């Protein structure tokens, strides 16, 4: 059997194939959030004034802090991949840990932000919220659902990165076989990217 007639390399060895699969998965994630962005645009155009009023209530400082945290985590993620590709395991492990911790910091921040809102009685179906104009009810509905689902993705991302951390320390993921870490990184960047859209839509444009 000559080299040309051989069936293509075993599937798990196909670097490009693994990337194609991951990017296709990211397409589905974008469309999942796409459904909610669609609702956001419909409701925003229906109740521009209410959205304007409601957005004033959100803390730009907390939102900005979380944006900085997530952007930094994307940087540490990219650095960890870079180090692993050049065979430096230790700094890669370090930066992966940093990424997970930054994800955790994001969630702590979110916890306090949501906690304060809930303390003020602003949560779906609460009597305080239902007393507000309709557009504000929807604004907070979108706020909780979209940032909540995003937060869920942060948690999933942290779980994926934790598994990858174990893989890296056990040398299953290493300088020669790093596609799993790259794909994990792509997922993390997507989570970051979605926040980049959520931040202005909820906190900045009032």
């Amino acid at each position, binding site marked *: *059997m000559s080299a040309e007639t051989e069936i293509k390399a075993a599937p798990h060895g196909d670097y490009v194939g693994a990337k194609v699969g991951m990017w296709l998965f990211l397409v589905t994630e974008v469309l*999942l959030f796409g*459904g909610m962005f669609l*609702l956001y645009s419909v409701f925003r155009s229906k109740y521009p004034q209410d959205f304007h009023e409601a957005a004033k209530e959100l803390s730009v400082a907390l939102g900005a802090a979380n944006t900085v945290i997530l952007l930094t985590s994307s940087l540490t993620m990219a650095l960890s991949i870079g180090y692993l590709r050049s065979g430096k395991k230790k700094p890669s492990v370090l930066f992966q840990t940093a990424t997970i911790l930054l994800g955790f910091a994001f969630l702590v921040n979110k916890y306090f932000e949501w906690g304060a809102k809930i303390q003020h009685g602003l949560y779906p179906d609460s009597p305080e919220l239902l007393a507000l104009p309709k557009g504000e009810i929807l604004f907070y*509905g979108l706020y909780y659902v979209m940032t909540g689902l995003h937060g869920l993705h942060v948690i999933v991302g942290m779980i994926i990165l934790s598994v990858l951390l174990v893989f890296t320390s056990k040398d299953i993921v290493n300088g020669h076989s790093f596609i799993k870490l790259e794909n994990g990184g792509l997922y993390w960047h997507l989570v970051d990217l979605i926040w980049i859209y959520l931040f202005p839509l909820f906190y900045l444009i009032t």
Partner: protein
Amino acid sequence: MSAGYQAPKSFLDNHGKSSGAAAWILSTDHKRIGILYLCSMLTFFSVAVVIGLLMRIELIAAGKTIMEAKTYNAFFTVHGMIMIFLFIIPGIPAAFGNFIMPIQIGAKDVAFPRLNLLSWWLYISGGLIAVLSLFTGGGAPDTGWTFYAPYSIRTGTNVSLAVFAAFVLGFSSILTGLNFVTTIHRMRAPGMTWFRMPLFPWSLYATGWVQIVATPVLAITLLLLIFERSFGVGFFDPAKGGDPILFEHLFWIYSHPAVYIMILPAMGVISEIVPVFARKGIFGYKAIVLSSLSIAGVGYLVWGHHMFTSGMSDTSRWIFSLLTFIVAVPSGVKVFNWVSSLYKGSIDVRPPFLYVMAFIFLFSIGGLTGLINGALSTNIHIHGTYFIVGHFHYVMFGGTGIAFFGALHFWFPKMFGRMYSEKIARVAVALLFIGLNTLYFPMLVLGWQGMPRRYYDYLPQFQPLNVISTIGSWIVAAALIIMFTNLIRSLFKGEKAAGNPWDGTTLEWTVSSPPPHENFEEGPVITHGPYQRT
């Protein structure tokens, strides 16, 4: 090859590391996963058929016949849910796509074998959650498979769990689509250019994209419905500023493309069977390829035709109507190409080919009645009537269902290495054809006369046609019983099938029946088109 050559063990004999049931439910072999899907789908299908039969008995006379009105509501919901999410959508791709497609493109397996197994596990979990939803909480959902708000938010039945089941099944569908698209991009044998690829993988490729691009929208819609029920967010509740019509939009943005997830692979099957039994190449290969791709593309833009009476601007209504007419063109292209392929062929009328003939006839009725639905003025007359029920059953059962059974009869020898009785198979397909027309044609007439769908009761003048329709359902049931008895009997007692029993030209017919573990002893090199006869 040396004199002591021994044929490799078939995948059925190669257990891998595990044995018994574990050799199946833990196997990452695409062929075993295909058969897992086939068995689980046919089980769910049988349940839904029984529910359908019971509904037809209920409708044999006006008023209460055998069940309460509430039970009837639950029955049509569960029948739709099982048939759509557990049979027709995974249907041909998950069973035959898994088994046949990698062999047809000359690959050892799919791109992500473990993900493939995960898809089946998600499928079976989704199926079990759906079953669980029938007996827990407030009882079986009674919303219809479309889960329209606001009723789906208010009903006390177990909608949340049923919807979660559909969410899990959607995830399974996405992963299958993603896997197939990657496989077709990356794993084609040397020399198999895009336009030397058989038409079945082409149809799965187009389907895979629809699965990837449309299903996430359903996923978020179903999640939002669960949030509405659990937290009262208000997106679909006018009292809180929301809009129930938005639910319909989001739902159909997925569920219309889903219609093409159902029918495209069926068309792919027909495009495989036609050239084999016409004993000549397919007419208009490229036109069929392009029509698959354009159906996948344009099909994404026509969802509004489900909502002509829901409240939409006239401009959007005529645009959706126009696009609906445009999407019918590529389907027509395919039908004409199949028929032209038969011209001057030396046709061998074997059971799979009979399924093709049945498909072309039934699908044409389904497709043409679709245009009556798609035209604005006639749609207003027949919206929400039995005409719609008749139309989509002609497409779904007469189209996809018939193609599914055609595929089963076409690839059965390949999958199990046994032949079935062709005589009995002919009886079954003839009965099925008669039964389907007796069952569904009266529905078209009833709908035209104004009988509403999803009603438990009807006016006395509708009875004669309802009786005919119910008799049709019995003929269909008899045909199915004959078909499955024949196939199951052949699993054990059938003659051993040769590698190429139908004289096919694509790669799956070059390997033994059933195929060996990694499909090919020696990787194939492709030098010509898929249907070229030497």
